[in-house]
């Protein structure tokens, strides 16, 4: 990204946000296309609708087809209250209570541990790779 690109983002951020109905329209269009793409993907290689949507909206933003001020407000709003949207999924585990009863505490421990393993391993690996590449870049510079 060159300097004008950075300036562009700053400039975009200062523009007035598009009306909510336009923002909703863009989201609806992206989700509609994502749904089609998701259906035509082979079953053995599923790419979920939201992931397609994320990729499409990102490409649209990067190619400046969609401008930041046309989606920023709605996306900020949705990300801000995503916790509420997730509550039903959490409560869904009510269905799995029998599962926990059967396999007991070991499974829960394994789940908690594996979450932590994923978090630590990926964070650590990325930190290592980035620091190595920074060193190489510095030496070259």
């Amino acid at each position, binding site marked *: 990204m060159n300097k004008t690109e950075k300036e562009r983002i700053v400039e975009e951020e200062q523009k007035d946000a598009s009306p909510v109905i336009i923002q909703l329209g863009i989201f609806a269009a992206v989700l509609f296309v994502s749904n089609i793409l998701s259906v035509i993907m082979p079953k053995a290689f599923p790419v979920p609708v939201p992931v397609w949507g994320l990729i499409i909206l990102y490409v649209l933003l990067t190619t400046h087809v969609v401008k930041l001020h046309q989606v920023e407000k709605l996306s900020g709003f949705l990300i801000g209250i995503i916790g509420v949207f997730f*509550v039903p999924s*959490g409560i869904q585990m009510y269905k799995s209570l029998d599962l926990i009863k059967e396999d007991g505490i070991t499974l829960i421990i394994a789940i908690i541990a594996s979450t932590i393993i994923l978090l630590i391993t990926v964070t650590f690996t990325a930190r290592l790779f980035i620091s190595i590449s920074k060193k190489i870049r510095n030496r070259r510079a």
Partner: protein
Amino acid sequence: MQFINNTFFGIFVSVAVYLIGLYLFNRFNNFFLFQPLFVGMILGIFVLWILEQTMGVSSTVIYDAFWHGGKDNFIGANLLFWFLGPATISFAVPLYKRNDIVKDYWVEILLSLIVGLFISLVIIYLMCRALNLSDSEIASLLPQSATTAIALPLSTSIGGIPAITAMTVILNSVIVLAIGDQLVKWLKLDTDPIGIGLGLGTSGHTIGSAKAVKLGSIEGAMASIAVIVVGIVTNIVVPLFARLIGLK
């Protein structure tokens, strides 16, 4: 019975328990165990359980009422759940805003996610063996880094139990939201925002990404890219790994 066969029963319960959680979280100085999502989830399950006991109906009846307003309705708490889709595509915005980082480091980002995921799989597998979990339980835990829509069919295909995988993916988010950033700080891994973002996005999915967005713009962008890449990489790496360790 009539009053829970109501479109707004599930929505009301979900929002109400979340607000109670939010109140407790603020009241107790943001104590991590009082994360609104965590408290809301426990309270919600408790509410449904109490209803089941007092009304003397099966858990399926209660669950259907909660999820889609009972047998005559289609909408309930699933309306809120639906919004996870639009909320997930929203992460394109924080990602786009840090396109500079993506452009500079995309090779390192991809490599870290692939290598990090593979190492995690090995460690998770060894831990499961040490805990004496069955093959089907191990197969259920391996796909957890992907989102539900990818993880469930994957789990089935390597001989796992989808219900356990679904529970695991949900718990991932809750755990990362509750302790993710503290854990990274305790282990002094918080020197690199790219690493934190990728870690939170991989382990906590979209909820972890929402947390990352709050930490900073680079963290948020990296978590968003992790959600995309890890889903796809998991799809390729996990079946290979499962074959390697001799699951199905």
